[in-house]
């Protein structure tokens, strides 16, 4: 462990400043994007990286993105000889991405761009290499592929949509029309995509301006030192927490219902080794299932994100989310397994479903070490719904994507929260009025799923019920889990209720239960009902 060197005051100032850059990029992205998934649901993340591509600040956005974004920046740095004014774009899960709908943009910040500011900064001279990187990642509602919304039960990455290895979408300040057109020609809703990509580029520029202002104000020498110190500081915080934990090895496992291709459950197993003396943690996923045919494979970046998230949750609220958090961690994720898939495995659900299960498993193991600090399992699925078709009002193609919240697991000392996104996601719901303006749907019902939270001394939070009527024929795709293996309770608390999805057919009124992972052609007037899982309970309820 390194000793503390930086002025604690200057460090706090720097932490504040870089964090607000990430937040500001997020605000610009949200306010200018076109798709409801970005503008209403805020399914995006923004972060700032040092000259070596290490994350020094992340906005309070989507946890699943944050731990994995550094890989995107690293991949872009490795692939591209950046020049001032460039912006890279990528989404390839096997080259810095996570799943195809998440498109990442990386802007290298060159000091010579400081001339674009209206401020005197004589002391700061431009160099040949970027001094910082800013990046943002947004979930696009469609990136082509076999299923509308690009979140379907594909069996290879090729069927999941367009795959973009790191490439420049902007060169020297000018958009590369060929690259942009190639992307737009591969998706179902090119206009919306172009608007969202514009917004991502704008957000990058907003970040660039702010980083340059910081450089002009303090000079690069100081910033470099502070960046290093901030990483060290995060590391110290994590080690301080690990030093308080009991030494030992803690095993846990949990299951994904299936991979959407066969019914076979898939296991995720972990062994945590906590070494309080060194303030270190070793995480080994040996024993987890091999990668599968269906789309629930996670690339290593996601597994690392899940570890990052759990470690970050051990720290106080005002701790900085930097890459230094991962330093006390040693990760073993067997190659070719469901937690470290290799091409050509399909990965759409790894980011949204498997990532949640990895967190569930990590927390279950951690609960054996520090039971008073760990809640029972939360919903454990993002209950992804994608719907695609043609909007009869405009005759244009549409692609809708939304995740539905569930119950939060009960906490030692308090009930879980109902109808709230947990762990690796924090996207908002699409307001019903925004949704009906944007898509040919009518929402019929949106309410708590009473009684779905697990029993216990403290109750798990309840899930939600959302009913959507289709006003046109459309392709509906589900990607959900926790149908068979319910969110676990802890300390004799009961499990949360399993999730469900039902179609009520317009013609017959017949109710058909849908599997968790499927794609169906539905008719105008059909109603899709999603019931999301409740959280697990905590503690024995007693006899009364």
């Amino acid at each position: 462990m390194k000793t503390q060197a930086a002025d604690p005051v200057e460090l706090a100032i720097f932490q504040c400043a870089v964090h607000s850059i990430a937040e500001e990029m997020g605000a610009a992205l949200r306010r200018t994007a076109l798709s409801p998934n970005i503008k209403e649901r805020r399914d995006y993340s923004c972060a700032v990286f040092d000259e070596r591509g290490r994350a020094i600040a992340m906005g309070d956005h989507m946890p699943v993105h944050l731990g994995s974004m550094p890989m995107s920046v690293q991949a872009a740095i490795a692939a591209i000889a950046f020049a001032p004014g460039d912006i890279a774009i990528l989404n390839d899960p096997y080259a810095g991405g996570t799943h195809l709908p998440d498109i990442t943009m990386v802007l290298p910040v060159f000091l010579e761009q400081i001339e674009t500011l209206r401020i005197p900064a004589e002391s700061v001279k431009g160099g040949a290499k970027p001094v910082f990187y800013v990046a943002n990642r947004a979930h696009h509602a469609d990136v082509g592929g076999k299923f509308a919304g690009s979140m379907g039960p594909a069996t290879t990455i090729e069927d999941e949509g367009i795959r973009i290895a790191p490439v420049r979408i902007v060169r020297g300040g000018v958009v590369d029309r060929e690259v942009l057109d190639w992307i737009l020609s591969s998706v179902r809703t090119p206009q919306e995509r172009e608007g969202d990509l514009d917004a991502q580029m704008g957000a990058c520029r907003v970040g660039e301006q702010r980083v340059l202002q910081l450089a002009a104000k303090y000079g690069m020498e100081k910033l470099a030192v502070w960046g290093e110190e901030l990483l060290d500081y995060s590391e110290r915080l994590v080690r301080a927490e690990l030093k308080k934990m009991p030494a030992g090895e803690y095993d846990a496992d949990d299951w994904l219902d299936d991979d959407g291709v066969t019914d076979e459950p898939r296991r995720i197993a972990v062994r945590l080794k906590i070494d309080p003396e060194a303030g270190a943690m070793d995480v080994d996923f040996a024993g987890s299932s091999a990668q599968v045919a269906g789309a629930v494979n996670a690339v290593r970046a996601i597994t690392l994100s899940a570890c990052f998230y759990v470690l970050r949750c051990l720290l106080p609220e005002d701790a900085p989310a930097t890459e230094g958090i991962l330093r006390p961690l040693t990760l073993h994720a067997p190659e070719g397994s469901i937690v470290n898939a290799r091409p050509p495995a399909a990965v759409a659900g790894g980011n949204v479903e498997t990532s949640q299960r990895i967190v569930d498993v990590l927390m279950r193991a951690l609960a054996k070490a520090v039971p008073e600090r760990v809640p029972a399992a939360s919903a454990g699925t993002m209950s992804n719904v994608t719907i695609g078709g043609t909007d009869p009002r405009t005759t244009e193609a549409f692609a809708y994507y939304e995740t539905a919240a569930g119950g939060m697991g009960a906490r030692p000392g308090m009930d879980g929260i109902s109808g709230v996104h947990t762990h690796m996601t924090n996207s908002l719901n699409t307001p019903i009025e925004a949704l009906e303006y944007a898509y040919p749907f009518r929402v019929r019902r949106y309410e708590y799923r009473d009684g779905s939270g697990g029993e216990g001394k403290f109750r798990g939070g309840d899930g939600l019920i959302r009913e959507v009527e289709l006003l046109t024929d459309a392709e509906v795709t589900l990607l959900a889990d926790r149908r068979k293996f319910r969110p676990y309770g802890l300390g004799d608390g009961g499990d949360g209720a399993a999730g469900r999805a039902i179609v009520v057919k317009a013609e017959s009124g017949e109710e058909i239960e849908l599997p968790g992972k499927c794609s169906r052609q539905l008719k105008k007037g059909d109603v899709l009902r999603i019931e999301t899982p409740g959280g697990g309970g905590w503690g024995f309820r007693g006899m009364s």
Partner: protein
Amino acid sequence: MRIAIDTGGTFTDCVCLADGKLRVKKIFSTPADPSRAVLEGVRQLERFHNSRAPFDTVQGDFSLAEKPLEGDGSDIAKCGIAQSGADNVEVRHGTTVGTNTMLERTGARVAFVTTAGFEDTIAIGRQARARLYDWFAPAPECLIAKELRFGVAERVSSESEILREPTDEELAALVDAVRASGAEAVAISLLFSFANPKTEKRVEAALRELGIPVSASHRILPEFREYERASTTVVNAYLAPRMEIYLLALEERIAEKHRGGRVDVMQSLGGIIAARVAAEEPVRTVLSGPAGGVVGACRMARWAGFDKIIGFDMGGTSTDVFVANTEAAAQLTRESVVAGVPIGVPMLDIHTAGAGGGSLARFDAGGILRVGPESAGADPGPICFGRGERATVTDANLVLGRLDAESFLGGGVQLDGERTQRLMREQKGALETVEEFAAGIVRVVETQMEKAIRVISVERGHDPRDFTLVAFGGGGPLHACSLARALRIPRVLVPALPGALSAVGILLADTVRDFSRTVMMPGETMGSVDEIFGELSAEAAAEFAAEGLKGVAQRGVDLRYRRQGYELNVAYDPQEPERSTKAFHELHRQRYGFADESRPVEIVNVRVRMIAASEPYEPERCALVAGDGSAACSTQREVWFEGGFRPTRFYKRERLRPGDAIAGPAMITEYTAATLVLPGCAASVDGLGNLVIDVREDGVGQDGVREGGVREDGVGEDAAGEEERA
């Protein structure tokens, strides 16, 4: 006679305009029944007004009522308002009743009525969690308990078509159910009611039978996004019974004593509305007091000759900051969250940072110095007040010599320097000296303030170098210079009357009401919104006429690129509708880094703001007489600045005269605040009694001020010229 009364936690500030001068009275607040202090304020101001005694003018001293009010409300009648008070007394009120009701969760039992199937949406909200990495975050508290949520069988489509209406029987059943629930107020928010309010109006009419306050979303906030609209409507209902009783009783008591007496209330958006309207729409008053501060700061700054300001009001536990253009309207936001509840009606964009003079300092597990959000509050208070044991920002300022122990709150509070030194030494961690610890606390808290200012300035595309920092509140003037330096703000204004700025703002505010409609039309049809403007303006004019007011309508449109989710508000000129679109592209580029004139634009909302200007007031300007303030210098002491202690002169503000110029380092003390002028900066007193500080980097122009206190940019020169002509 027009009187403004701003209720604060400790003091109730009362201001009136008499013979062209502002008169100020501070009396102790009466938290159990705020109206008692209000009525006492009216009585005292009136007495002074009648006696024509000179008191408490802009340049004068502040004084307190000799003793706090005691006893119960019946005292009012006894000590009371003059038996036959002056006619036409108009009391303008900045109230904390709304804010406190929200914070203390002491509002009404509200029934929430919405489209059947969506009863829980008021609790589900946006399904996201507020604290991303906190497994132990408490559940957000919904203002509506489960048994108070009611559904109506009805539906309006996104094309405004009524798909289903409730039958009369269904409505009757609803009324019965709400009656049986024991609700004290009702909030109605049906899906798409902003686009077609017909059904909502029927439901509203039916529920009015109950004789309890009914708030309907198409009146409170006729805009899309059902959760935010419903939440705003619920807050309105939650506050309605209490505010109605409070305001109408106050108005009645004023009217009893004064023929034609009336009460108006400051709204969160910085304009005045009649008490009757505020009682019906109390959601518009939750930031009533702070809004007065914004208006007051704007007026003071405009008179002093500054157009763009950043306001900085630092109190004991929190700090409010805002950006305003003093020539135009202040920045408004429609995305406020008050006490954890989203409110969508426009409010002044006041950003609150959870740190103030009483914030506690600590080293966290990673060794970083943290300040706040916990506060020592009034009890136990800072170490230097004698009871607290943990270091606060106030203690740090004392250690650094930045508080005048004798004049602190008029000498009313004894500061224990020795105790502070001792306890802070124990808490200084690895730092070498107490001074380093204290300086660190000040820097950290100033960084948090700096971040708060960045949120409202830089993050919205404003460059701080174009602004003047207006500092008020107990701690604002002490930290203003240093903040201005950090943000490259070239100038600090510490207004005259920094302790009563909110009341002054309330006194001078215009009467303002907003009227809006969501239209969702293509940008090419910009010319055709004229008709909607006509309807809104007619509605607005009628409402103002009912109050005996004549207003001027300001027109604006909210635009966005087609399919974006957020709008930018630009002015609308019926002669040149196209200009709105141009202004939108420009604003978009400035804020978000890009614009595209070929992209289709959408008109989302049409807005009319009706304004009836308050009576004009121009403060008296004194001629500037060049001076060095030495007559006001009380002492010289050691004050800590970056690098160590430096001998620093202390000045009594009330003894400074217009034209005096002081080079930093200097401390200027007054009853409610102290101003720190950093080395290298230079302060001067303008013709209105404001302190204007020229902020420079240390080491630049140490000897500071040019003769006559004229600032380098020449603004002072012009102002002085005008005064001489006047």
